[in-house]
């Protein structure tokens, strides 16, 4: 597959300024089909802003965004829904696209919330709602999936299962994923490319490269870079610079 065809979204030196303050600047990254790109960084480092630039929510940006797909699924970090609307989980699943009932059921089953299909959205718990958000985003079978802290509020076992699901979706649908996560374990093990942000791009590359980077160590501490070494012991492959899997 040529580079042009597999690229879903490409940020060229992109940045966004609000009230004369840069939220993030100079970000270049590419999300390709079948690849997971993860944004990490401390609070206020511009992760969500970068995702919104990639999605085209922010209009007056510096640099440029090239988007090659319109089939997008988005799980925002914060979502405020007005409860003056009578809205069931089922209605919410159909929000941006008319999808078939089987696809809805499949997605809800995958995220473990099929039993909530006819419940009112306002009556869900935080974790349940988060699962519904993920189900909605994947049920469209998108080419590009943007997940901004998708498992917040989900219980521990659910968290692991959902991350496995996300990885599986990236493989089966061959869609590109832009993931924002604080869970360094997941980031370092499941992703192809890591971008470490702190108002700008601190460092980026394969998880191994980033973990070795000194700026990463100052941001996240020495322990964070050891997560990977711990994990490497139980893994049978490494990721090359291009993100391809190499058997050990």
């Amino acid at each position, binding site marked *: 597959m040529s580079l042009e065809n597999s690229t879903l979204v490409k940020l060229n030196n992109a940045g966004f300024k609000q009230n004369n303050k840069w939220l993030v600047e100079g970000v270049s990254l590419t999300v390709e089909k079948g690849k997971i790109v993860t944004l990490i960084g401390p609070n206020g480092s511009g992760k969500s802003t970068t995702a919104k630039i990639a999605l085209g929510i922010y209009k007056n940006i510096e640099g440029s965004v090239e988007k090659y797909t319109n089939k997008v699924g988005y799980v925002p970090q914060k979502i405020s829904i007005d409860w003056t609307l*009578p809205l069931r989980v089922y209605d919410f699943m159909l929000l941006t696209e008319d999808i078939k009932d089987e696809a809805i059921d499949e997605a809800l089953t995958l995220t473990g919330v099929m039993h909530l299909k006819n419940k009112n959205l306002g009556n869900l718990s935080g974790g349940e709602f988060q699962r519904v958000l993920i189900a909605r985003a994947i049920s469209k079978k998108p080419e590009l999936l943007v997940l901004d802290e998708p498992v917040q509020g989900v219980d521990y076992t659910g968290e692991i299962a959902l991350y496995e699901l996300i990885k599986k979706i990236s493989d089966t649908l061959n869609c590109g994923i832009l993931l924002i996560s604080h869970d360094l374990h997941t980031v370092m093990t499941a992703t192809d490319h890591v971008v470490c942000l702190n108002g700008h791009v601190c460092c980026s590359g394969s998880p191994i490269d980033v973990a070795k980077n000194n700026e990463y160590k100052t941001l996240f501490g020495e322990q964070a870079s050891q997560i990977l070494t711990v994990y490497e012991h139980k893994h049978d492959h490494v990721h090359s610079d291009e993100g391809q899997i190499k058997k050990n």
Partner: protein
Amino acid sequence: MLDDFFVRALIAGLGVALVTGPLGCFVVWRRLSYFGDTLSHSALLGVTLAYSFEFNIALSVFIISSVIALILIQLQKKTNLPGDALLGLLAHSSLAVGLVVIGFLTFIRFDIMGLLFGDILAVTTKDIFIIWTGGAVILIVLKLIWKPLFASTVNYELAEAEGLNPDRAKAIFTILMAAVIAISIKMVGLLLITGMLIIPAAMARNISDSPQKMVLFSVIGGLLSVLLGLFSSLEFNTSSGPSIIMAALVLFILSLLNIKQSIKLKN
């Protein structure tokens, strides 16, 4: 049959209710009731201009309401005043200008009460034509922008991110609001149009668990309000607008009783 003024009023009123039902749901969901008030207050200016230049009333009201909506959007961008203050400013100043202009038009006899509260005696066959064709166009356009408008009502960023162009849907919806006011002014009167938009929708909210049901019940509530309101208007010789709105209020109160019952059932 259309010779009878009451039959004309019924046909016109039912046409209005078919359109205000779905639009009213969006007015409730998007918290636009004061926006609706502002547009309908400015409609008086539209009516006076129509009389001054012997122009079609519905068209004139539509144009003036659209202009007021545009001015509002500009003021929101250029000033730091809160939205409700701007709405009040535009509503009352356009109402005042309209009333002053009426004062100057001494050569025309105005039925102010009819304008403010609706007048079923005044509904002509031409009005019916305007209401039903205008209403059909409004409903078709609303159907076309339903997806982006509804999605952005739930969450703007989701709609924008997933490529639905919510800004365009919002702009079109504003024009639809001006249009619905233009076609319903003769039936309900300009002071009560927002009531026709909000009360059936609010009633429907009490008894619905999905957006489609709410739209359906809102339409049914509106139709019932027009029927009940017009018959009582004929019976008790009251203005059509207040009678229709009162009927809607009665339905709203009944829907509250329904809630109490369902809560009891749950317990």
